[in-house]
C-alpha cells in the first residue's frame, strides 16, 4: 500500500545544500550579512514506486528540499540524480527538450489548493496546460486525456468546464493532483497536500494518493509536519531538524523505535485519538534556534536532555546503526 522499492532507486540526492542570503538593511548598499542554512548537506534516495516521508517542524528545510529537487529553488550545491542523470546539469547545460523531459519526470502537488490553481482558468485549461507546454499529447486526444485524469482522481467529466472557485478544498486538491499527473511523472513531490483540508476530507486525499501509487506505480516524496499522516502513507521516513536529516529508517522502525532524541520527542508530542492511551510526553525546552547561525556541534544539543560536551563540540554524522536505520546522534546505541 505504501509502495515497494523494486528495481532500485529512482532518485538519489547527494549532499544537497540550499542557503538563502540574508541582506543588511539599507536601500543603496545591501550587503550579504549571513546565510539561512535552510538545507545543509542532506542525502537520501527514493526507490521506484516508493513513498518517502519527510517530516519536521516549520523552518526545518523540508519544503526547500522538495522545491530543490524540482529546481524550483536552485540548489546551492549537491547532486540530484534522477534515473542516473544529473538533473542540475540537464537544467543548466542540457537542451530545452531534455530539460522538459526531466521536468516531466518530477511534478509537484502544492499545500494550498486555493493559491495553486489560477482562478481565471477552467479546470480543462488547468489540466491541459501541461500538454501545451510539453507537447506530450496530440491535441486531438486532449479532452479524452483530461476526462481520464479527472476520473482517475475521483472527479467527473462535467467538472472540466467549471472554474476553481466552484470547488471545495478537497476537490481542488484532486485537480492539483490531476494536473501533476498530466505529464506522466514518475515522482511526485507532495508538500503538505492535506494540511489545509478539513479533517473528514483528509482521508479521501490520503487514500487517493495511496491508490494512485498502487495503480500507476508512482513514487512520492511526501512532505509533512503531521507525523500521523506520514505513518499512514510512507514506507520510509526521514526526520529533519534545522536543515539536517537527523534520522531515517523504515516508517515501521521510526515510529516504533525511534533512536534520535528529537524524533522521540516529536513522536511523544502528538496527541493520540484515544483517551485510554496516554503517552509520556517529552517536553522539549525552548524553540528551534535560528537557521542563520545554527548551534555548534549537534544542532539539537541546546534542547536535548542527553546532550554532553561532545554534542556541543562535535557534529554527529548520519550513520547506520541498524540495517537501514540511520541516526545522527553520538549516543544512538544507548537508546536501542
Amino acid at each position: 500500500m505504501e509502495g515497494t522499492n523494486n528495481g532500485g532507486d529512482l532518485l538519489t540526492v547527494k549532499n544537497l545544500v540550499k542557503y538563502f542570503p540574508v541582506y543588511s538593511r539599507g536601500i543603496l548598499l545591501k550587503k550579504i550579512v549571513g546565510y539561512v542554512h535552510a538545507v545543509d548537506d542532506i542525502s537520501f534516495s527514493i526507490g521506484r514506486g516508493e513513498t518517502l516521508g519527510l517530516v519536521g517542524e516549520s523552518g526545518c528545510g523540508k519544503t526547500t528540499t522538495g522545491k530543490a529537487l524540482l529546481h524550483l529553488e536552485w540548489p546551492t550545491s549537491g547532486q540530484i540524480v534522477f534515473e542516473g542523470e544529473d538533473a542540475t546539469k540537464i537544467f543548466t547545460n542540457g537542451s530545452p527538450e531534455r530539460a522538459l523531459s526531466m521536468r516531466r519526470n518530477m511534478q509537484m502537488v502544492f499545500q494550498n489548493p486555493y493559491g495553486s490553481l489560477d482562478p481565471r482558468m477552467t479546470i480543462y485549461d488547468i489540466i491541459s496546460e501541461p500538454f501545451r507546454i510539453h507537447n506530450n499529447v496530440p491535441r486531438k486526444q486532449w479532452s479524452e486525456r483530461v476526462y481520464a485524469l479527472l476520473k482517475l482522481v475521483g472527479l467527473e467529466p462535467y467538472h472540466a468546464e467549471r472554474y476553481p472557485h466552484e470547488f471545495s478544498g478537497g476537490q481542488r486538491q484532486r485537480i492539483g493532483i490531476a494536473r501533476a499527473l498530466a505529464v506522466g511523472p514518475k515522482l511526485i513531490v507532495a508538500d503538505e497536500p492535506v494540511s489545509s483540508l478539513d479533517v473528514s476530507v483528509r482521508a479521501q486525499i490520503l487514500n487517493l494518493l495511496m491508490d494512485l501509487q498502487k495503480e500507476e506505480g508512482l513514487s512520492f516524496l511526501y512532505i509533512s509536519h503531521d507525523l500521523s499522516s506520514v505513518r499512514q502513507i510512507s514506507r520510509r521516513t526521514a526526520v529533519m531538524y534545522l536543515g539536517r536529516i537527523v534520522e531515517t529508517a523504515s516508517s515501521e522502525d521510526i515510529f516504533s523505535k525511534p533512536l534520535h532524541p528529537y524524533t522521540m520527542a516529536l513522536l511523544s508530542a502528538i496527541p493520540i485519538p484515544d483517551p485510554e492511551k496516554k503517552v509520556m510526553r517529552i517536553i522539549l525546552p525552548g524553540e528551534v534556534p535560528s537557521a542563520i547561525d545554527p548551534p555548534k556541534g549537534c544542532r539539537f544539543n541546546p534542547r536535548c536532555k542527553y546532550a554532553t560536551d561532545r554534542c556541543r563540540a562535535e557534529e554527529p554524522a548520519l550513520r547506520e546503526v541498524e540495517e537501514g536505520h540511520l541516526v545522527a546522534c553520538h549516543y544512538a546505541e544507548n537508546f536501542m
Partner: protein
Amino acid sequence: MEPDGDILRVEDLRTYFFTEAGVVRAVDGVSFAVKKGETMGLVGETGSGKTVASYSVMRVVPKPGKIVGGRVYYDGEEILSKSEEDVRKLRGEQIAMIFQDPNSSLNPVFSIQEQLTDIILSHNGGMKKEEALETTIRLLDKVGMPEPETRVRWYPHQFSGGMRQRIAIARALLLRPKLLFADEPTTNLDVTIQAQVLELLKSIKNETGTSMVLITHDMGIVADMTSRVTVLYAGRVAEISDTNTTYRKSLHPYTRALLRSVPRVDEKVDLESIPGNVPNLITPPSGCRFHPRCKYATEVCSEKVPPLEEAEEGHFTACHHWREL
C-alpha cells in the same frame, strides 16, 4: 445532568450571518452545558459552528452575524438579554477567551505591558499602575516566559508564535476568569510547541480550577485534554457524552466516521474516508444535515431533523438510527 453543577448552559442557540449571498445558519439550535471545573471539548470541522457558538456566548459575534435566538445561562443567569455594559464586566472577569491566532489577537503597536495592564486597570478602578504591572509580570512568569520583567516591555513582533500564544493565555487569565474558552489554541503551532502549550493549559486548570471549553478539530487533543465532548456538525449538535464514550461507544455516525478517518501516530489503520464535503450552510441539507454523507441514512433522515435524545445517562445523540448503531 444536574443543572446546579453547570457553570454554563446554552439552550437552542441560533446565530445567523446575514450575507449578500443569503442567510448562513452557522449555529442553528445548539444546546450544551459546561460543568464546573471540567474541560469540555467542542469538536467540529470548519463551518461546524464551534467558534461562532463560543463567540455568541461571549457576545462578540462579528457582523453581519447576529444572535437570533436561544438562551445562555452563566452561573444560572441568562446573559443574552443583559445590557452590553453588564456583559463587558462578565467578559474577562468571568469568561475569557484564548483565540486561535495570537498574531492577530495581540495589538502590534502596543507593548505587552501596555496591553495587559490596561485590561487590569479598566476592570479595577482604584488600582495602582505598579500593582497591575506586578500582576502582569507574575502571570507572564506563570505561563513560562523567561525574564518577564524585561520582556514585558517588548512588542508582539519580538516574540515567537509559541511565546505569543503564552502571552494570549496570560492575558486571558489576568482577571481570574471562572470559565475559559480556548479556540484552537495550538493550531498555528509546531507540534513540540503545541505540547508545551497543552501542558501549560493543563497545569493552569489544575492550579486555578477554572472550567474550560476547548474548541478543536484535533481528535488527539480532545482525547488528551477533555473529560466530556460536544460534537458539532454543520451548525447543530451531533452528540454529547463523556470523552471515553465518544471514543468507545459513540452513538452518532458522524462521530464514528470522524474517528475512523484520522491517521494515528501510534498505529497504522485503514483509513475510512467520509464521502462528500462539509455542507454549505446557506442551503443546508434537509432533515439531518449529515444524511448526504452518512452510510446509515434512510428516507426519514432527509425528511425529519433528528432530536437530541438522551440515549444513556449523560449521553445525547441526534440520530434517528442510534438504536441500531
